[in-house]
């Protein structure tokens, strides 16, 4: 009976997830698609919890609810032809039926291959799997949360490179020019809410960073949550979402990678391997790296939301620097391209 109830619950979750995913891609109205996508992210967080992955659920909750939704909604204002309510994919060209059929067959074929690989992976019950290795060596990793152990000890090299990828992507965004024009100072309701919500977010973010050593949490979750505070500030009218300008911003963006590298290289200098922590020091070193990474991730994610360099746009809005991209956007809306 209880097994059936679980299957019922799982089926409900999956059905809702698939419906939202399908709806967000199939609907004519792009706005509708974006709102459905926000719901999709929410459902995904529930699914992660259901699959016993609270670490991922925390990151999904912070990014899905706090960052992606806001990013998509502000990007919606850039898309040509979406200023009216019912606008959709204004720039749709028609594809030949044969090409679209071929694409469908191709995606279906890939799905079958992927599904077969998945079933094979489930059938293999390997006793000496990586999971057992992780649990066996967790004692010397300096942390007791296995996911943090994998991220910052066993596979710390990967995580360093991932942070570098993050920084590289955001350097690309920075080099594309000034940030979006920002938002009007909000009314009393939103600014009041932001005023006391942001400090609470800072505290919870610090808590997630600290608790990551022994329970779900860590740099990625804390950083994403911290970035959401910046998004909230930005929406309430703060021009740069709480970020500093110029050199301080650059420093903040690379601090995670920098501290990671410095610790790794110092360990090499004292005769150990790259990022091969001494057992007694592992916990503190991981906390130091995670603290720096939290700041770095938060700064890069806020820049990603701003969609450009907050420093390049002068405080004075009447200069051409900020006026031109906006005017171009306006033009775009008027004449539907193609």
């Amino acid at each position, binding site marked *: 009976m209880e097994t059936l109830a679980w299957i019922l619950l799982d089926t409900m979750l999956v059905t809702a997830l698939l419906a939202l995913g399908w709806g967000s891609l199939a609907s004519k109205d792009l706005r509708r698609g974006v709102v459905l996508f926000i719901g999709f992210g929410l459902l995904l967080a529930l699914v992660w919890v259901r699959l016993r992955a609270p670490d991922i659920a925390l990151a999904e909750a912070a990014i899905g609810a706090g960052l992606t939704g806001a990013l998509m909604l502000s990007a919606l204002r850039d898309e040509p032809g979406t200023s009216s309510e019912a606008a959709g994919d204004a720039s749709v060209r028609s594809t030949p039926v044969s090409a679209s059929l071929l694409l469908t067959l191709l995606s279906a074929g890939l799905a079958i291959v992927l599904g077969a690989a998945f079933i094979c992976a489930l059938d293999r019950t390997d006793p000496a799997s990586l999971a057992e290795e992780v649990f066996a060596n967790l004692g010397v990793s300096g942390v007791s949360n296995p996911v943090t152990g994998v991220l910052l000890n066993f596979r710390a090299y990967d995580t360093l490179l991932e942070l570098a990828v993050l920084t590289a992507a955001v350097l690309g965004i920075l080099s594309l020019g000034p940030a979006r024009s920002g938002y009007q100072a909000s009314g009393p*309701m*939103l600014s*009041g*809410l932001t005023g*006391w*919500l942001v400090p*609470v977010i800072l505290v919870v973010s610090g808590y997630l960073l600290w608790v990551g050593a022994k329970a779900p949490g860590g740099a990625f979750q804390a950083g994403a949550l911290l970035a959401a505070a910046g998004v909230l500030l930005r929406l309430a009218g703060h021009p740069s979402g709480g970020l500093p300008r110029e050199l301080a911003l650059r420093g903040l963006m690379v601090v995670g990678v920098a501290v990671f590298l410095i610790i790794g290289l110092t360990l090499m200098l004292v005769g150990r391997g790259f990022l091969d922590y001494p057992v007694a020091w592992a916990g503190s070193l991981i906390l130091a790296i995670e603290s720096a990474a939290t700041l770095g991730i938060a700064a890069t994610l806020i820049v990603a939301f701003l969609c450009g360099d907050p420093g390049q746009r002068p405080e004075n809005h009447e200069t051409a620097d900020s006026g031109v991209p906006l005017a171009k956007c306006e033009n775009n809306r008027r004449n539907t391209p193609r």
Partner: protein
Amino acid sequence: MPGKTMNEFLSAALIVSGLAFFIAGGVGLLRLPDVYSRLHALTKADNLGLGLLVFGLLLSTDDAFVAVKLVLIWVLVLASSAASTYLIAQRARRRERGVWKP
């Protein structure tokens, strides 16, 4: 222990009444005729539904820290729901969404 069963019973009763408000909120959101009345239905789930659920769970939790987090979650949802329903209603007014007339 009669105290424990009493506690469990009360906890279950609070959770069930919370669920009733959730369902009422959902049905209201589906059945009511215009944006503004649907907003009103939504707040039942946010404020009362989640509140009763939180208090039901409070009775069955031993950890004081978890209890603080539960109450904090309810307070946060209350504040967010107040602000966001206000913002949504304001936007609907600005766009002159129709008001239902019987």
